[in-house]
């Protein structure tokens, strides 16, 4: 591994080998700060998961998990989100290995579309649940389902808005230092959402569907 500097190893997205020490330190702390934020966000989700586990049977005589969760949509949502995560990986690679903005933009649009597909399916699920009377007001259990899954959905939505902002910045400034840092952070965010989703599909959907 001789000759490869630390930051380059760490951040697939940014080639910092030639930058001065201050810049590298700046990038380090910027990205590390975002990691710290993600971890506190993770604690937030963890608390929600804990609450979810305690209200799993609090259906108050209303619809139950097994009645409301759809196996197939959970599966396809997972597939979409996972693929979008991979697509964002391609954004990072393009950022590191190509000069212009073309490939970055292409893969970002792809990521965006996959994310949108995910959200579309999720909303559709929610709407059918509403039709069945499985609303958040119905029981403690559904309150928690909607808040937990909805919170993740909201994160995905924010990530997509962020992509739009980054797209604009890319158009205006091209991949300059600050854009790149933000693209790296966005990447961390997007992959992190995938990690949360892994827990959601396991603990919420699959657990609810086990018979």
């Amino acid at each position, binding site marked *: 591994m001789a000759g490869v500097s630390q930051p380059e190893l760490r951040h697939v997205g940014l080639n910092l080998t030639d930058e001065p020490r201050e810049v590298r330190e700046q990038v380090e702390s910027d990205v590390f700060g975002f990691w710290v934020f993600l971890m506190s966000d993770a604690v937030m989700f963890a608390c929600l998961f804990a609450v979810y586990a305690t209200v799993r049977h609090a259906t108050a005589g209303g619809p139950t998990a097994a009645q409301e969760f759809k196996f197939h949509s959970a599966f396809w949502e997972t597939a979409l989100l996972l693929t979008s995560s991979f697509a964002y*990986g391609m954004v990072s690679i393009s950022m590191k290995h190509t000069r212009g903005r073309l490939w970055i933009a292409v893969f970002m649009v792809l990521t965006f579309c996959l994310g949108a597909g995910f959200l579309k399916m999720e909303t559709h699920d929610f709407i059918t649940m509403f039709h069945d009377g499985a609303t958040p007001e119905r029981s403690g259990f559904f309150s928690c389902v909607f808040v937990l899954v909805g919170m993740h959905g909201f994160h995905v939505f924010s990530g997509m808005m962020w992509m739009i902002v980054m797209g604009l910045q890319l158009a205006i400034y091209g991949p300059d230092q600050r854009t790149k840092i933000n693209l790296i952070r966005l990447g961390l965010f997007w992959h992190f959402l995938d990690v949360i989703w892994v827990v959601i599909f396991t603990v919420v959907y699959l657990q609810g569907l*086990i018979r």
Partner: protein
Amino acid sequence: MKISPSLRADFLTYLTGYGLAIVLTGISFAFVFYRLLAPEAVFAVILFLALIQIIVHLRCFLHISLKQSSRSDLQLILFSALIIALMVCGTLIVVLDQKARMM
């Protein structure tokens, strides 16, 4: 774009992650769909698979490794995992015990 060795390595990392994640997800869903085991056992298995998948994501997508280079991130994640474990396990033990004693 010219395909350099480092590009190939980076790409392979993502591809591996993607592949593994798909496989792990597939197994989880299959376990539930085909009811391969008793319910409790299925849940244990899918939890375990989720854990593995999280590690895969961290390794391949988020580039956390045991190498010196990403020590502070790794420390951070391990510490967070500790706190999350304390909070989640604590909450479950406490609240479920309370419910058992009063409902």
